């Protein structure tokens, strides 16, 4: 029944697997030593013209996507598939085997076996033993064989599939990666505060990709620790369709926004020389915001003869930490005060109160990805862990009891076998034997 075609055997062999895994391990080193995805000129400068050309021929600058590296992964997949086709049917047969049809003479020769006699009939012994087995978690079946009775019980037959789950998981992960490659994209966008976009730019090519909806950055903030290290980058994003707000979310690194399968990740930012100031008046309950450059002033449109300006700003690294604001309405002299970037202050004027906020204007750098294959990859990962656990720590254990009655006394043969963890099973076997022998 087995095809012993030499090509088939070659692709089913573990030797090929060892070769492929070895080649993958060795060649993977190249890309960790030679920087990847730089320009041709960069390699010329760093190495030499001829080396750079050689790299180009061998696709070294993008080796993990090169024909030969993908070829190795393809070979591994083919190897896994053929190997499974070769072996799995045999394993399935073992799982489904009729263990009550076993060759009886083999039982006594098993590495684990014990014999004893009981002064009872076969039927009495059988019911007593199967009860004891059942109370130890072994569900048994029995069949009359010639002049004796064979009882069989097993645990973990399906654990034999563990290794195949591991092997299949690798293929599932590859399929997930291919789906992501074919139907997904990766790109980025620098989105200034208050602006929106309907497209982003693909990595590598830089060509625009239409999102199919609109996304707006309402606000971007940086929080700092006392040490001056950044604590959080936060963008408030709004998704719009036909100018209607669909979804709003504050995103931070590690907590992205997803809409229609497209995910927006907080990845960088850019500070502008401009400032966004907001003014809200208590009495009339009106508010507005203006964008201003350094040391500029502007009249507010909602309030007559009211103006706001920026006198000074303090920097902390690349970003503004405090802003000095000048504010004047129709009554009295101007107010001058500092605001911590991102904060608001209440300003008391002659007959009303204003709440004034100010911050540096930023653009948020978003990484944008669509990867419909990621769930397939995760399922593959789950399968791998499950399969490894089963393959390493679980085993298929089988026990047989052969009962033969002669002159009112029954001789009992207990035999057991396991496909793995022989030592562990020896202990289980001997304690089970003790239970079965006891009265």
């Amino acid at each position, binding site marked *: 029944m087995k095809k012993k075609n030499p090509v088939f055997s070659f692709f089913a062999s*573990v*030797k090929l*697997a*060892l070769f492929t*895994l*070895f080649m*993958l*391990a060795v060649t*993977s*080193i190249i*890309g*960790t*030593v030679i*920087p*990847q995805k730089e320009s041709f000129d960069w390699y010329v400068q*760093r190495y030499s013209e001829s080396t750079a050309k050689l790299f180009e021929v061998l696709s070294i600058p993008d080796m*993990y996507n090169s024909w030969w590296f993908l070829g190795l992964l393809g070979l591994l997949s083919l190897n896994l598939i053929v190997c499974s086709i070769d072996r799995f049917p045999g394993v399935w047969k073992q799982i489904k085997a009729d263990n009550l049809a076993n060759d009886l003479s083999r039982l006594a020769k098993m590495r684990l076996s014990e014999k004893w006699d009981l002064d009872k009939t076969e039927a009495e012994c059988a019911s007593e033993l199967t009860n004891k087995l059942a109370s130890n978690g072994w569900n048994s079946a029995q069949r009359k064989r010639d002049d004796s009775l064979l009882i069989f019980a097993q645990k973990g037959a399906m654990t034999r599939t563990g290794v195949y789950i591991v092997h299949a998981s690798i293929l599932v992960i590859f399929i997930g*990666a291919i789906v992501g490659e074919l139907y997904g994209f*990766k790109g980025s966008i620098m989105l200034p505060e208050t602006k929106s976009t309907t497209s982003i730019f693909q990595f590598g090519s830089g060509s625009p990709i239409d999102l199919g909806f609109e996304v707006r950055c309402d606000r971007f903030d940086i929080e700092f*620790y*006392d*040490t001056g*290290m*950044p*604590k*959080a*980058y936060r963008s408030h994003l709004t998704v719009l369709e036909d100018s209607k707000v669909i979804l709003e979310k504050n995103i*931070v*690194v*590690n*907590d*992205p926004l997803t809409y229609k399968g497209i*995910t927006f*990740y*907080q*990845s960088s930012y850019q500070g502008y020389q401009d400032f966004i100031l907001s003014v809200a008046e208590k009495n009339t309950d009106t508010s507005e915001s203006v964008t201003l450059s350094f040391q500029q002033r502007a009249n507010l449109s909602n309030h007559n003869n009211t103006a706001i300006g920026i006198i000074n700003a303090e920097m902390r690294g690349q970003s503004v930490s405090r802003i000095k604001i000048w504010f004047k309405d129709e009554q009295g002299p101007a107010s001058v005060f500092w605001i911590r970037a991102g904060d608001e202050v209440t300003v008391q004027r002659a007959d009303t109160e204003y709440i004034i906020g100010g911050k540096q204007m930023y653009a948020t750098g978003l*990484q*944008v*990805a669509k*990867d419909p294959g*990621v769930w397939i*990859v*995760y399922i593959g*990962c789950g399968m*791998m*862990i499950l399969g*490894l*656990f089963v393959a*390493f720590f679980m085993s298929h254990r089988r026990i047989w009891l052969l009962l033969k009655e002669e002159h009112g006394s029954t001789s009992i043969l207990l035999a057991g076998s396991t496909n793995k963890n022989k030592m562990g099973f020896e202990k289980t076997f001997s304690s089970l034997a003790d239970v079965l022998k006891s009265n």
Partner: protein
Amino acid sequence: MDSSQLLGITTFTYLFSTILYAVIFIFKAKKLGTPATVFTVLAFLVQTAGLLLRWQESYKIGYGHAPLTNMYESVVFFAWTIILMYLLIEWKFKTKVIGAFAVPFAFLAMAYASFSTGINKEISPLIPALQSNWLLAHVVTCFIGYAAFAVAAGLGIMYLVKNTSESRKTTNNESLLGTLPPLKVIDDITHKTMVFGFLWLSVGIITGAIWANSAWGTYWSWDPKETWSLITWFIYAITLHARYTRGWGGTRIAWLALFGFVSVIFTYYGVNFLLSGLHSYGSN
């Protein structure tokens, strides 16, 4: 008492543990077996207290994160997992001499963490990319794997030492190496330890990929660290297959255990210092 004092003490207690196990091995001082174990367990508890205290201190400062986020903390945690792994093996396989080959790794890690000048011991705040529960899962699982591989490497050395002298026929039960477990037993424990490590390394790589995906939208980007963890994974996959399907054992597996651990160290340590160094030269 603060955490740095406790962790400082740990370095010396692990040195003392190493000496105790070495004495058991070299002088066949079986009577020291129980004291060595008791002492090592105590040292382990001191280190555990040190780690927990450091965790608590980070909350007091206001940073609030598990002590697993920089080189110093990870080396300390590495030592902790090695000792945990070793104690489990001692308990499961009832043999003490392995300690002479495994505990030194924990001592060396602690000594490096405590005395190296290039290592920052401060509790520092977490940059935004590291603020993820996946980070915790990732680091913990990777280090369980690494610790298992460290112990497997110790066992590999033990195997090679014993094997060399046996093939010279100098060993009998009276001699020094006679106290080591039989070759077959060492071989078996080495294999089991590597299997255990492989499972955890797999989980470690997967949790790392999930973390990367939640932070940047790419679960795999072939950066040097990722790639080296995969290379290490391939090496152990090769080892498992060579043993399981081609019947490799003994010396060859012992060498692979050592070789695999070199790759672990390179993944963990070398990549940061050698390869990133390479990159920074490149950009200068």
